């Protein structure tokens, strides 16, 4: 978590920063295109990519020496997914009843 290897992390930081800004612009302009049902998907995919970039590089998840932190992040996302998915199991099937 502290000192990285010999090479400076600066290029990575600035690279990620640019990528995040580009992603934001992409999200904004893609929303103006008519992609039908895929508008939401595109927006979320870009958002998730940005979130991953922040987590992996700014929050140093990539360099973490143990798998533990990645396990914590993955589990949390899994449980959030459980909340969303199982709730949708009710809402998504109500009109069938």
């Amino acid at each position, binding site marked *: 978590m502290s000192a990285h290897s010999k090479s400076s992390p600066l290029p990575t930081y600035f690279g990620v920063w640019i990528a995040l800004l580009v992603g934001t612009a992409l999200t904004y302009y893609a929303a103006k295109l008519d992609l039908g049902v895929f508008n939401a998907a595109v927006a979320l995919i870009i958002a998730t990519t940005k979130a991953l970039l922040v*987590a992996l590089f700014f929050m140093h998840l990539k360099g973490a020496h143990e798998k533990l932190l990645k396990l914590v992040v993955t589990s949390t996302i899994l449980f959030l997914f459980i909340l969303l998915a199982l*709730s949708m199991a009710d809402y998504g099937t109500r009109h069938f009843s």
Partner: protein
Amino acid sequence: MSDSQSVAAHAETHNPALLHHFATEEQQRDASSFGMWIFLATEVMFFGGLFCAYLIYRGWYYGDFAAASKSIDAFLGGTNTAVLICSSLTVVLAIWAAQTARRGLMLAMLALTMLFGCTFLGIKGFEYRDKFVEHHVPGTSFSFHEEIPGHPGQYANPQHAQIFFALYFVMTGLHALHMIIGLGIFAWLFWMAWKGRFTPEYHTPLEIGGLYWHFVDIVWIYLFPLLYLIDRHK
């Protein structure tokens, strides 16, 4: 007995920041960082409940949500996203500066982070004021009379639109509250940095404060498209 022995053990030189119940500084640093990650996990679930509510109502009242979403300023929202992204950069640069003993840069980056944070809140304040003026704040004076995007002549159900705005204000409001707390944390970090408490060997508070700040950034990364960009192409 046990106490004098431990005092004797303490007498050997170690960083005064090392707390006695930890064996090594590395253990303390790992524990602190791990603790912050666990706290962020709770924050994910905290916001997650709101995302769940949002998801369900967006599915139920899509057109009304689209109409409401159109009435908030996506350009300001996008700008705010960029502001937060820049603030995340300044955070990692501040930590790098601490790691490489660049005191001036560290202080500058911390100050910039706070400046970006305040900018974010300022823009948010403008947005809220706009909503207040347009009577889009849920409550007794709420009124909403906009067309559903893509369906000219068809007006959004104001009650459903009110749900959108309720979620909008709760979600962005909660996020803004976390920003304010973040600003407080960074003010405290700035003060500690000013006092020279951070060295290349010890700057754990910066790291865990940074983790918190990045998390707040990530929440906004999701809030922006979900709230501001529904059916913008229509």
